[in-house]
């Protein structure tokens, strides 16, 4: 059976990303050390151009390609845009950090490019083998990037811990998938969906729980979240930003596709299970974030609690309504990347990640401080920021689908979260600076900060265009 040529068009974004990665590998050979930022700019430009084939697929008829192993639909396209765009921003923020820290600067940009490829593949996988392969693709790159600064003891620990947790979680997930294969005799998610409706319940539950272990690890869902604070603190800050946004978003793409397609008619109530996990995840993340003094650890626990909010969107994904989840991911991507980029700037210039070091930032770097305040308010969910609209939509979706108790827990958690987010704002504006002098920012980082800040404001003030975009993207091919 020959491969239809249209199938190659359907994966043109992936072909572009793969080719770009290989080209950068060759380019890196010819760029002298000390000028490796060229590779970074080339990667950023190439990835930005990679948005063109992705946007070219917008409005495509949802269908499976490559003999049912891959799928193109609005849902996958949305997550590809998020993956590629956040990779570009992370590369921009990483340039200043990597310079002089490692002789393998060029390889980091190449790894990030390939990771964007892996994330795109995660968004479109329609086959158990492809799901495992693309998750491992991203994981392997992430382990390496987390342990990238080999001279830093915390970096070593981050890389090793991330690897051990990740390898264990994916082994459990693969075992769960093997049970799923045994129950259906199929590896395609769409074929599994129809075969699973008559399957015996206990085995389906075991398969689901084991599969959730692997994916829950990637999105840092409680109880698979323990690695998150250590890895975010120890990894280079841009990598932490990348893990908290791009990997997490792609993990949710896989999770939702697996549940909404393969487990659609399975004899197991996954909506209640996910709703329960959502409540636990957002509460645990929030409570552990309260006493943190390190900005990266605080953002790590806050990202766990946001995983809980996103799980609420997954649980509320009924019928044709993925908008809550998708809008939240969009808002979260802008906001959290921005917050991490401020942490990158401060960490680079002041050499510390402690929140008390942010004291007096309002005087020393007003623009930076105001941006950070904006991101903190957006993470809390206060208007007129993107986070508010995201929370509004996700709570709305939950209420609409009869999960009022979950929405109530979400509201309570948002109020608790206000405490630690406002703590940062208080340090920046109300506490006296420890030392005087302005805090400089490199151009690439300014660009990244500007884009995320603008996005956070725009998605909060003018939500309508974004809502239209998200509604167009919420189409998930089910059968």
């Amino acid at each position: 059976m020959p491969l239809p040529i249209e199938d190659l068009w359907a994966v043109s974004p992936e072909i572009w990303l793969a080719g770009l990665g290989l080209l950068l590998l060759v380019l890196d050979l010819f760029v002298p050390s000390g000028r490796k930022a060229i590779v970074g700019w080339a990667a950023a430009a190439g990835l930005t151009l990679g948005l063109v084939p992705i946007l070219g697929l917008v409005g495509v008829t949802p269908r499976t390609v490559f003999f049912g192993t891959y799928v193109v639909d609005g849902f996958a396209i949305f997550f590809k845009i998020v993956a590629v765009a956040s990779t570009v921003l992370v590369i921009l923020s990483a340039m200043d950090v990597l310079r002089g820290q490692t002789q393998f600067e060029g390889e980091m940009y190449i790894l990030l490019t390939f990771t964007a490829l892996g994330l795109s593949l995660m968004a479109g996988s329609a086959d158990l083998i492809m799901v495992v392969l693309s998750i491992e693709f991203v994981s392997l790159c992430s382990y390496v990037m987390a342990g990238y600064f080999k001279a830093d003891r915390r970096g070593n620990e981050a890389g090793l811990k991330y690897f051990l947790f990740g390898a264990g979680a994916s082994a459990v997930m693969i075992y769960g998938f093997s049970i799923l294969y045994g129950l259906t005799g199929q590896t395609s998610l769409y074929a599994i969906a129809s075969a699973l409706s008559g399957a015996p319940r206990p085995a389906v539950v075991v398969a689901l729980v084991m599969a959730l272990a692997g994916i829950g690890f990637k999105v840092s869902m409680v109880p698979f979240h323990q690695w998150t604070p250590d890895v975010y603190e120890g990894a280079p800050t841009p990598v932490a930003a990348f893990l908290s946004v791009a990997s997490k978003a792609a993990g949710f793409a896989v999770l939702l596709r697996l549940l909404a397609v393969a487990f659609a008619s399975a004899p197991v109530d996954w909506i209640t299970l996910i709703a329960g996990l959502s409540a636990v995840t957002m509460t645990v993340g929030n409570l552990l974030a309260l006493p943190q003094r390190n900005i990266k650890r605080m953002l790590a626990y806050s990202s766990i609690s946001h995983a809980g909010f996103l799980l609420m969107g997954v649980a509320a994904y009924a019928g044709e309504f993925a908008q809550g989840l998708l809008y939240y991911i969009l808002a979260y991507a802008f906001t959290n990347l921005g917050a991490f980029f401020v942490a990158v700037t401060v960490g680079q210039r002041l050499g510390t990640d402690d929140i008390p070091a942010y004291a007096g930032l309002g005087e020393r770097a007003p623009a930076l401080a105001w941006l950070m305040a904006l991101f903190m308010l957006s993470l809390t969910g206060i208007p007129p920021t993107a986070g508010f609209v995201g929370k509004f939509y996700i709570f709305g979706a939950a209420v609409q689908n009869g999960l009022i108790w979950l929405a109530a827990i979400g509201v309570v958690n948002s109020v608790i979260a206000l405490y630690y987010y406002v703590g940062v704002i208080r340090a920046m504006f109300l506490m006296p600076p420890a030392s005087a002098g302005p805090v400089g920012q490199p151009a690439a980082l300014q660009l990244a900060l500007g884009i995320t800040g603008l996005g956070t404001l725009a998605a909060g003030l003018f939500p309508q265009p974004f809502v239209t975009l998200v509604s167009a993207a919420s189409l998930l091919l089910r059968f």
Partner: protein
Amino acid sequence: MTLGLTHFLVLSTLLFCLGLFAMLTRRNAVAILMGVELMLNAANINLVAFNKYVAPGALNGQVFALVVITLAACEAGVGLALVMSAYRNLETVHVDEINVMKW
């Protein structure tokens, strides 16, 4: 009594649980990795056995198993590199001694 699917499932369950036990109790990062390899092998036994008894029409299970073996090799390569780089700096590979950051 003839050889059937259940025999293979029992073997794979025991192997998976032994691997998980190594993950939970071992201090040495390399030993934990060995536990992960046992778990992956257990999954592979499942996949190949189901391929024969449940879905002999296509070779998806065996293809899946081959992919898992490849991924295990990749994981071992990257993981052992991380172990080496951690050992150079921290002078230990025992995970309960590796806590520069508080849990």
